[in-house]
């Protein structure tokens, strides 16, 4: 692999990892919100 290809390879890996990290963060927040909603529904019901 040429240095140029290697740079491109790393740049793509980095952008994919960043998107994955953001999605995992969003998922964690969503799970928290779902838990609160379920607890609230349980208390109301």
């Amino acid at each position: 692999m040429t240095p140029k290809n290697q740079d491109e390879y790393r740049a793509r890996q980095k952008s994919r990892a960043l998107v994955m990290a953001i999605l995992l963060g969003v998922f964690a927040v969503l799970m928290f919100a779902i838990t609160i909603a379920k607890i609230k529904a349980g208390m109301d019901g």
Partner: protein
Amino acid sequence: MATAPHPLPLPAEWRDFLALTKPRVMTLVVFTGLCGMLAAPVRVDPVIGFTAILCIALGAGAAGALNQWYEADIDAAMKRTAKRPLPDGRMDRQSALHFGVGLSAFSVLLMGLAVNLAAAAILTVSILFYVLVYTVWLKRRTPQNIVIGGAAGAFPPLIGWAAATGNVALLPVLLFATVFLWTPPHFWALALFVRTDYANAGVPMLPVVAGERVTRRQIGLYTIPMAVVAVAPWPLGLTGPVYGIASLALNAVFGVLALRVATRTTGADDAMLPEKRLFRFSLFYLALLFAAVVVDRWLA
């Protein structure tokens, strides 16, 4: 013995994974699913409602990814789809398969755990129907591919309603039937003006197999039950006059445009303007019809 270094293929970009989910198709799926949920006579917690719509979007995206994984050869042969990540060589097939299967499982599990089992079950059926029945079984075999396969795109309002209520009723079934019967005239209008593309790819779309005249007649014929089913919720007392009047007006315009396409004969270099007009209006028609169900429910 020394060997020449083997170049590693570049990993696909995240944008290619997004493209695999067919975001434009997903827009309509999300909209009809949301309308199905908002038309239900039950108030849904906003977080649970958002999760349900997210699951519908992810499930549709997963089905789209699996469709592109299976149809990479067809996509490569068609101008409209040749720039998709797989035929363009920006992604390997295995990544697309893993992404599609993973996203399918994730969407169904999240729907089942966070929303309810009925919605998760219908979501599962819709993904399997689109991938196995439409993509794998029908698409390459019969010109009836989009008639039966149209059911796959008709599930979202049922899923949305089931997410809100936990069951299925007559109104979402009629909304399902409307999308189901809308699909043939919608796709055949498209197939009339991209016929060469389908013929090159060997997809037995109706204009390719049976010819233009039969396709035009079928567009006209399918419009009749579609209009009947679309208007039906009003006389059946499932919706009020807002939906009734909106659906009558929309079906009248659809009927006129479809009749124009059904009765036309074309020459060699025809610009296919009435067909393009019907195709564009059919998208507008579905969006407005579903919006009318929701507005009608809110005003009731």
